[in-house]
């Protein structure tokens, strides 16, 4: 049915709601990229098969729903049961018949499938009670994991397009702008530019043709919130864009999606087709007289295309090279016409802001950073996954209460935020409330919300080098400070990790960093020194160890590190099985020995040793040992 009026939309909403209520018992199978990788599709199919076979769909009204990402990817495939709110983790397809038998028909819980809290080892049956979920407040991700992203009616039953209907029929474009301004929302892509100010600046630009773009080129390694939003609730992105277009008087929009996100493209495309069919997109939206079209453009796989001017060039079919920022894209953007570009998460929040009011959004967060923010909590942390929290939540709360602490209870070393433009934040700043300003003050930045937790087995010189190598590869090469600065800096880091560092290297790095910050054309180059400078600021002694002692304190840099097995080894053979060079000798139940000549210092043995009997020591000490 094509919606021709506000009343018709309300009728559709009521229908969708009724359909949802008619089936209160649901099995939600997470089918985000993470869970799909561990076999979620097979699990969903097995449930459908089992439920239909036993006639439960007709008799009890049971429904199986494939949803977007529940966020708790590491425990996938995840299956939730409604209305009980029960959550099973790591569900395998072969266990589905047993689950249907015991849990659905027998109404008993299978303890082995429940989530086990790593903090107190207790198993928790209810979704809502799991600390990972309990502490979240979801705005942009409000419907992810609750709806079937390929089903428009399901989305509408969960308030999708309600904000759009309100904007189109009850508000003028200027009122929409005022409401967004009241919310205080800032760009979720990283830089944190005020959304309303960006829109106003575009609206004030002369001309009749303007564009609304969505930046789905989530390039920061370690961040995947935009992927999950596009995959799990594509309608929230469309709704936000249509509202934005209405406020700005734009009729053409594009979503630029990373080529590495194939499922996001499929779900967005389907959402666009469905929305168009129902009159929620295209000509005369909901009979309001407002027209707006959205197209999808797949990126070519270049990190720099997340930068606004590069993205617009890429959309125009060109190489993604940024331009100087004195020309604002709100005035001269795509095809040199006024353009608003916002991040996926920014757009996803707009519908909720209009539906619930700007004041509601502004009531959350800190003074300058309003609302909630999505983060991907990954790295060496127990509960990895996707979370959304009010701005101002402390890092400690995120890592320890939600994340459950550092993996294997190793000592915490740093948390990296902001991707290659961000920095590493040390333990002494764990009580930092997370918002745009506080992260920048700490020498990092918000970026796209990646939070990578690092333990004592992480070398900070290696981390900084990792980002430099990443950026050297991704620098578009247009301006010299970025292209050459990165290359030279990387050469110094290569020397450091190979034990060829010299006194004065740190100073040389700092000089290069200052030059890049001053002289680079775009933010990629300007912010490239952040990982370097933040690790230098907080972990300088580690650099000095590399230079002066030719040692890597974390035991990561291979040219500087040797391994040995301590006498408490119980000879379990775990290490010999994983050693890629077969350099560990020793009979079962007897002390093992590493052949230093053949060892490549990869650390595979250390990671698997159940008794923690393998230790690293500086390679320079090896010579002394051999003499003894």
């Amino acid at each position, binding site marked *: 049915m094509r919606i021709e009026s506000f009343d018709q939309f309300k009728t559709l909403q009521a229908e969708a709601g009724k359909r949802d209520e008619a089936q209160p018992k649901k099995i939600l199978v997470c089918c985000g990229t993470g869970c799909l990788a561990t076999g979620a599709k097979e699990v969903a199919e097995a449930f459908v098969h089992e439920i239909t076979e036993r006639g439960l769909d007709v008799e009890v009204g049971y429904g199986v729903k494939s949803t977007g990402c529940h966020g708790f990817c590491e425990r996938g495939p995840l299956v939730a049961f409604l209305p009980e709110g029960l959550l099973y983790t790591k569900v395998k397809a072969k266990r589905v018949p047993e689950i249907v038998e015991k849990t659905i028909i027998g109404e008993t819980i299978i303890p082995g499938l429940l989530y086990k809290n790593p903090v107190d080892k207790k198993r928790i049956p209810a979704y809502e009670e799991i600390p990972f979920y309990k502490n979240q407040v979801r705005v942009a991700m409000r419907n992810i994991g609750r709806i079937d992203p390929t089903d428009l009616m399901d989305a509408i039953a969960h308030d999708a397009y309600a904000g759009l209907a309100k904007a189109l029929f009850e508000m003028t474009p200027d009122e929409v702008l005022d409401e967004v301004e009241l919310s205080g929302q800032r760009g979720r892509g990283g830089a944190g530019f005020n959304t309303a100010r960006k829109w106003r600046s575009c609206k004030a630009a002369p001309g009749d043709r303007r564009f609304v773009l969505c930046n789905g080129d989530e390039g920061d*390694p370690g961040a995947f919130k935009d992927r999950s939003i596009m995959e799990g609730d594509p309608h929230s992105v469309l709704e936000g864009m249509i509202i934005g277009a209405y406020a700005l008087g734009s009729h053409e929009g594009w979503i630029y999606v990373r080529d590495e996100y194939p499922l996001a493209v499929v779900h967005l495309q389907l959402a666009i087709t469905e929305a168009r069919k129902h009159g929620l997109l295209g000509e005369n939206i909901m009979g309001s007289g407002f027209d707006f079209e959205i197209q999808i453009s797949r990126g070519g796989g270049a990190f720099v295309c997340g930068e606004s001017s590069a993205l617009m060039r890429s959309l125009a079919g060109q190489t993604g090279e940024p331009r100087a920022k004195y020309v604002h894209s709100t005035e001269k953007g795509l095809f040199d016409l006024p353009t608003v570009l916002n991040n996926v998460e920014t757009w996803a929040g707009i519908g909720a802001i209009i539906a619930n009011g700007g004041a509601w959004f502004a009531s959350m967060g800190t003074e300058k950073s309003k609302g909630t923010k999505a983060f991907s909590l990954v790295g060496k942390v127990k509960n990895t996954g996707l979370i959304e929290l009010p701005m101002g939540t402390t890092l400690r709360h995120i890592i320890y209460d939600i994340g459950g602490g550092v993996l294997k209870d190793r000592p915490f070393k740093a948390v990296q935020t902001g991707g290659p433009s961000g920095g590493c934040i040390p333990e002494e700043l764990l009580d930092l409330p997370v918002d745009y300003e506080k992260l920048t003050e700490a020498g990092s930045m918000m970026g796209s919300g990646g939070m990578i937790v690092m333990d004592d087995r992480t070398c900070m010189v290696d981390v900084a080098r990792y980002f430099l190598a990443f950026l050297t590869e991704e620098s578009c090469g247009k301006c010299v400070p970025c292209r050459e600065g990165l290359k030279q800096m990387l050469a110094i880091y290569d020397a450091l990790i190979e034990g060829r560092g010299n006194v004065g290297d740190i100073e040389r790095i700092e000089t290069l960093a200052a030059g890049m910050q001053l002289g680079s054309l775009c933010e990629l180059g300007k912010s490239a020194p952040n990982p370097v400078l933040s690790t230098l600021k907080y972990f300088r002694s580690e650099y000095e160890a590399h230079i002066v002692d030719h040692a890597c304190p974390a035991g990561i840099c291979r040219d500087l590190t040797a391994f040995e097995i301590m006498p408490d080894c119980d000879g379990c053979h775990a290490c010999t099985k994983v050693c890629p060079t077969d350099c560990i000798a020793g009979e079962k139940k007897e002390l093992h020995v590493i052949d230093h000549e053949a060892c490549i210092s990869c650390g595979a043995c250390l990671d698997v040793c159940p008794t923690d009997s393998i230790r690293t020591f500086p390679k320079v000490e090896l010579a002394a040992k051999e003499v003894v």
Partner: protein
Amino acid sequence: MAEQPCVDLSKTEEILASYPHEEPSLIQVLQDVHRAYNYLPCDVLVRVAMVLDVPLAKVFSVSTFYKAFSLEPQGETIIKVCMGTACHIRGAGQLVEELERKLGIGAEETTEDLQFTVKTVNCVGACAMAPVMIVGEKYWGSAKPARMEKYLAGGGEDED
């Protein structure tokens, strides 16, 4: 230019027919071409440049700028090892090394029999399951070098 093209251009014509013949279509067309041929053959680039009315030099520039494009034929199965931060600190480098030992090729290389191409990619956004490796369409989370044979064979369920 009189030589016969060495690839079948009919697929290219089909792709070109589905896009407006203008510069903004270039990247989308190249992506479809890449999918159809598994790389960007030279003759196709010439044809794309002509039809879209974009200088060949520009088509070449775009083809070499983006990571998604290759000018060399790719292996039948593409192995992508994620090099995102989370994967890096959880040992993605060891996966690449193991592939090198098993297949005799490094990153961005293709086996002589055109069976495998190994690529390193910048974060596939599945960081919670780091390190991640994708063999063909199949994602392997918490990938371990010791299980490489299984990943390459493409079969079996993940154990944990």
